[in-house]
């Protein structure tokens, strides 16, 4: 099942669903990288609120998405890591180094420094 990607102003928002497969994550990485260019987006928000497990593969792929987006000129914020998931990630030794995180979507949008209404005037 593909991950739905929404566009709000010049922010792309991808909400990961529960029971996410590896393939869907890799597809998301490629899709986001392409859309950052197509829609001239400056920020990508990855909402993981629904994820009940973030293992080393998911963590590595999310980090890959963030690094890819950065090279394309967009900032990535991972939002909604659940308390239990955060604890499990720490035990696993997964730190999402160099990736911004925020409590939830609202905080993530604030961190991305983006006013939802409007976005950039030259956005297309």
């Amino acid at each position, binding site marked *: 099942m593909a991950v739905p990607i929404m566009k709000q102003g010049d922010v792309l928002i991808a909400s990961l669903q529960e*029971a*996410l*497969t*590896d*393939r869907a994550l890799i597809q998301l990485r490629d899709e986001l990288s392409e859309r950052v260019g197509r829609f001239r987006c400056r920020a990508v928000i990855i909402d993981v609120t629904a994820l*009940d*497990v*973030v*293992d*080393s*593969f998911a*963590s*590595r792929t999310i980090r890959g998405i963030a690094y890819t987006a950065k090279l394309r000129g967009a900032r990535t914020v991972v939002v909604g890591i*659940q*308390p*239990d*998931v955060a*604890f*499990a990630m720490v*035990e*696993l*030794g*997964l730190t999402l180094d160099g990736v911004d995180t925020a409590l939830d979507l609202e905080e993530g949008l604030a961190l991305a420094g983006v006013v939802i209404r409007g976005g950039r005037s030259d956005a297309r």
Partner: protein
Amino acid sequence: MPGETHVPIDQETDIVTARQKGRELAALSGLSKTEQTLIATAISEVARNIVVYAQRGEVILAPIEQEGRRGVLVVARDEGPGIPNPDLAMRDGYSTSRSLGMGLPGAKRLMDEFELSSVLGKGTTIVMKKWVR
């Protein structure tokens, strides 16, 4: 063993099935929500190991009891190539597949007991347990 669940692993979607069933069993066995998450994450790591290195195998889940303590047993078993150097495989950051190398040592940290046995050319078995606190 009573209440044993076998989850065949031969594609990545089976990883999700295995960890969901593991979480269900952990909940039934009285483990806290946090512990359920730790078990589900550990299962995800060992099941992925099967898909990546052995292509197919199985995850066996069972409720266990010892001296009045309840817990969950997870066995991940495959007949793949085996792990050439189990000590290295248990070291943080070591990987032969361009992964983070956190899978097995990480799974060990998530569980209370963890035992890896591997025979080259025969396969790998990982036995993990988590007890109710």
